[in-house]
Structures are given as structure tokens and as C-alpha cells.
């Protein structure tokens, strides 16, 4: 069973449906006991960083999430959920993230001058540091669906994929059992479902 953390941010309908589609049970939860029972955990998120970080902290779930990560349980942040894994974000101010992945979140506009913001649409993945197990069922060059105006920088060590949008935009990161996708696997067709499937095959304590 996959636990999808519910901290009042965004619409989780498609995310739950995408797990159902690949035959995995997904439960939307704000209960630490369910996180404990889950085989893996998704940290979703859309909207503004500060608002989401405040809500996540207010949910009281952060200690439970850290306890599960400590045990080696696979955890994946999606979109803003990925950004929350980082040290900090400079989206309208300076705000602390969970500090699980080194690096920070900066405006795409700082790196790209003549392209449209948000970076919205289908873009191809380039793998980094070899092919991460998350990508077991997809190929380099496959496209995934992005919608974001801020991006992760200074995270080269943990970056496992990027996409070209006037600059190399961080698409996915991984540090041990903690992973994150800037794109939306639940909106990325068969490629996205294949990434979720690979994530569901990871076992506690066995990820790279």
C-alpha cells in the first residue's frame, strides 16, 4: 500500500487513480499510523512553497515522515512535494524546506530569459549519474509533463534527470530512499505510470 500524505494541498484525484491504474492500492492519509503501515510514501503538492511548507508543518506529520525515511522506506515527492524535500526555497522570500536533499529552489526566470514561464508541457528527460531504478521501465528521451515556475538548483550530486528549457532544469532527484520528481508522473501518460510502477517495486531499505 502506498500512502499519499494529505496536508490540505492540491487535488489528489489523478494521483490516486494512477496508482489504481497500475494495480497498487493508494490511500490518502494524515494519520502517522497509516504512514507506518505503508510500504512507501508520496509527498504531493501544488501551489506556493511557503503555504505548502506551513501546512505540512502544521499537519504534525513531519516527525512521522522522518521516522519512516529513517527506516529506509521509499518516499517520493511530486512537483511542489519534491521542492519541499530541499533545504530552502526562494519563492517569494526565503523559506526552509525539509532539508532532505541539498540544494535550493529558485525562479526558472533567473536562469532563462526569453522563454515562457511557467515551464508547462511535455519535455524530454536526460538521465544523470547513470540510470536510476526509478527509470527502469522508461528510456532516456521519453517525455513527461511539467508545470512549474520554480526549479531546484545546486543539487547536481543528487540529480538523476534533467530537461532542457533554455537551461538544464532539474527533473528528478534521489538520495537513498528519498526521491523527487518535478514533473507530474500522474499526468505523463504511460511513461509516468511506468515511473510509478518502478517506484512501487522499491522495497524498504533496498533502494540505491
Amino acid at each position, binding site marked *: 500500500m502506498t500512502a499519499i500524505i494529505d496536508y490540505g494541498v492540491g487535488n489528489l*484525484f*489523478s494521483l490516486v487513480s494512477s496508482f*489504481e*491504474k497500475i494495480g497498487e492500492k493508494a490511500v490518502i492519509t494524515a494519520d502517522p499510523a497509516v504512514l507506518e503501515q505503508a510500504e512507501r510514501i508520496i509527498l504531493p503538492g*501544488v*501551489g506556493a512553497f511557503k503555504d505548502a511548507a506551513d501546512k505540512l508543518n502544521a499537519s504534525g506529520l513531519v516527525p512521522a515522515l522522518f521516522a519512516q525515511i529513517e527506516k529506509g522506506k521509499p518516499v517520493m515527492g511530486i512537483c511542489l512535494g519534491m521542492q519541499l524535500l530541499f533545504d530552502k526555497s526562494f519563492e517569494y522570500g526565503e523559506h526552509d524546506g525539509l532539508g532532505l536533499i541539498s540544494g535550493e529552489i529558485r525562479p526558472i526566470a533567473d536562469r532563462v530569459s526569453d522563454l515562457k514561464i511557467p515551464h*508547462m508541457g*511535455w*519535455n524530454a528527460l536526460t538521465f544523470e549519474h547513470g540510470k536510476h531504478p526509478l527509470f527502469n521501465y522508461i528510456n532516456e528521451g521519453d517525455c513527461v509533463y*511539467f508545470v512549474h515556475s520554480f526549479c531546484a538548483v545546486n543539487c547536481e550530486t543528487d540529480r538523476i534527470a534533467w530537461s532542457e528549457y533554455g537551461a538544464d532544469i532539474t527533473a528528478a532527484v534521489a538520495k537513498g530512499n528519498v526521491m523527487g520528481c518535478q514533473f507530474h508522473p500522474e499526468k505523463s501518460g504511460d511513461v509516468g505510470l511506468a515511473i510509478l510502477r518502478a517506484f512501487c517495486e522499491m522495497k524498504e531499505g533496498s533502494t540505491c
Partner: protein
Amino acid sequence: MITKRIIPCLDVRDGQVVKGVNFGGLRQVASPVELAEYYSRCGADELVFYDITASSDGRKLFTDILRETAKNVFIPLTVGGGINTVDDFDRVLKCGADKVSVNSGAIRNPALIGEAAKLYGDQCAVLSVDVKRVDGELRVYAKGGRENTGLDAIEWIKRGVDSGAGEIVLNSIDTDGVKGGFDLPMLEAVCNVVSVPVIASGGAGNIADFITLFKTLPKVDAGLAASIFHFGEVEIADLKQEMKKNGIPARV
């Protein structure tokens, strides 16, 4: 590099696609869920469901269908038609829509786009505009293209983007249904004044029209069409291959 999006649009009334779709001349399919799955398999980058239902019973059917589609199709879904309030946004977003397109609703209440963008994010609020030339001026039309609002299209679109529209669907009434190609001068005029994605709609008759669109106007992000996809006059897989051959970034 970000790819150019190809978007089929389905008109839905009382839970059925208005004009059934011919699959290789074999059978007529009117189930929006089945069609959405078909287009997703063919390589559509996004789908638009346009609700042309008049009754509230039909609205309920529409959201049921939307929910069923979102359970089975994992590409972005945009919903338009009958969006007049923030509650309408809420109603379709809860059923799996990713973006909501507003047309007449924004003309009746110009604050709607801004309110929705604030609540759900700019990327979620799409301003759809029907535009026609009147004495050489670009004018906004309402009520499915039947009523001239007198609004200047460029000013209207700029205002929409300023208040938070994250994307523009520009439908040229002058080229719509003619199948003689997209309205390039009109699209260029809009692309020159906005910094958000622009989706071209109205006029596509064949694959070459899409190639001309993206070659001539690199600022256009997507091409939308209905009947040419539904009647199999243009197969999305062929279109994507041809785009690629012509050096236009496409997801194949």
C-alpha cells in the same frame, strides 16, 4: 526542449460526444471516456472536454464522465463550457480536470479569471477567446461566436493575462470550419503581446496546416482541432511524425 502540443477537442452533450467519431469507418463511438483513451493512446498531448449541456441533469452526467475519464487517462485534461463561477472551477477540478477554460463566463464577469487564478494557480485558468475581424479590427465574440461584444481582442487578452490567465486559446471565427489553415496573422498579433502559452484553434484542415503553424509562428505552443481528428482526416501519430521530420519538437 519543450514539445509542441497537439490537442483534440471533444464536444460533450448529455454525456455523449456530440458527433460520434469514426474509427477507420468501422464504427461510431460516442463515449467520451472511450474516445479519450483512444486519443491518449494515439499520442494526444492533452484533451479538451467542452460541455455544451444545457440542463443541470446533463451537468451531473458531464462530471461523472469527467471523473471516469480522469480515472483512465493520464494526460492533462482541460474542461470548458458553462464555467461562470469559482464554484464551477471547483466542481470540475474535483473530478479530475487539470485546467479550466473560461470564455463567455469571463465576459460576463471579468473578475472570474483573477479569482480562479488566485485560488487554483495561474496554470489552471485558461482564457478561451472567439475572435472575428470586423472592419479590420479584431473583436471578441460571445455565446459560441454569435454575439459581437465590441471588445477589442488584443486588449481583452492582455487584460486576461494581467489578471492571471495562464494560457490563451485563440479561436478564429474567420478560419473556423473552413479547413484552410490556422489564422496566422491573428495568432501572431496575440503572440506578440502575451508571455503565456498560446493555443491555436480554428482552421486546421490537414497535417501541413500544423507544420505551417509551428514553422511560421514558433511562439505558438499548441494546436487544437476537433473534426479533422474525429473523422480521421488527420491521424495524430502521423502528424507527430511529420512534425518531427520538419524539426518541430514533438512527443512521439
